């Protein structure tokens, strides 16, 4: 049985809640788009595959500056490196997995988050349409992207 719109939107809510917690509710949510021909990737991406009640993937992709600012907001100091970028992205993706798993239980299987920079090593199959939710924080961009299989609408 396909997930309700509210359930699908929960992925975005979880992501926003986590980012807003760190940024003090400074995340600006821009108008979303539906993309049919391409996926959007920024500097670092945390990708999660979905199986079960929903089939497809979700990921957050963000510029290095976006992650740098998040890192600074959390730690207030410390050297920022490529590893830090991956750590920040890993934390976000891990939070999504944790919260979504808690809500949906065994009906939805989530993969371990895959963190990569620029574009994925293994190509991601383009679903018929992807939902792209742009986020903005202090002039830096991140994108929440969701790609569900067409069977999801059954």
């Amino acid at each position, binding site marked *: 049985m396909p997930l309700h719109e509210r359930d699908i939107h929960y992925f975005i809510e979880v992501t926003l809640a986590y980012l807003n917690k760190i940024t003090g509710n400074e995340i600006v949510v821009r108008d979303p788009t539906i993309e*049919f021909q391409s996926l959007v990737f920024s500097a670092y991406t945390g990708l999660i595959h979905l199986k079960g009640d929903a089939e497809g993937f979700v990921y957050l992709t963000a510029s290095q500056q976006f992650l740098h600012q998040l890192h600074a907001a959390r730690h207030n100091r410390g050297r920022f490196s490529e590893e830090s970028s991956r750590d920040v992205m890993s934390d976000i993706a891990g939070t999504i997995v944790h919260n979504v798993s808690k809500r949906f239980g065994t009906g939805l299987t989530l993969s371990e988050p895959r963190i990569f920079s620029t574009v994925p090593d293994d190509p991601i199959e383009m679903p018929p349409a992807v939902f792209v939710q742009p986020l903005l924080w202090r002039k830096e961009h991140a994108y929440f992207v969701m790609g569900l299989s067409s069977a999801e*609408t059954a």
Partner: protein
Amino acid sequence: MTGTEIYKRTAAYEQEARTIRLHAPQWKLLLAYDGQRSLAEVALSADVSFAEALPLTEKFLGSGWIEEQPITLDQYLKRTGAPDISAIGASIPPAVVLHEPKPDAVVPPVPTSTPPPLAPKPVAAPASITPPPISAPVTKSHGPMRLNAVVDYITSLVGNTALGQILVYRVFLRIPPELLQAEEIASVHLVNDTSLIRSEALQKAIAQAVNEVARRPLPDGVYAAA
């Protein structure tokens, strides 16, 4: 408000009409309430987005110029395309949600810098997944379909902008990619997309997808004049 409410102008409006001062687009909306069409349909016919129509409708309600028009069970069933439950022995009419939380505020579109896209992999057309449509898809000839009107209409069905946008996504998951490519539509902006869809095949596919996913027929107001 969910967009399904039906409003009519009041006697108070008739008395005050000559003294009311409004901007022209607001008059267009105010004069479009006819006690028959839903708020979503009225907004479309007045060329006002659903997001704009909501506060104006509240303003008109607050001024006492319009009031909600109750409808009969038969009218409700006709509008929703649902079967007449009395025919199957049910005794309780379906609930009509009259008031729901306001949709989220819509942020005005701002250009975004988009990172370079990944080259797409070839995509197979989605399998046909079809609960039977409630009413026949588009059969008569129309002018171009206004994409923003389609998006606004679908969004209005949920009564919450964010969830409505997810419903729009579900609708477009059902559209065969080759039809979108043929019309050179690479993306849909969920606020103020000015694209016009001229291909009849794509219009029909969208109308059918709305019918299947949202269980509502598209109103004629989504089409521009031929």
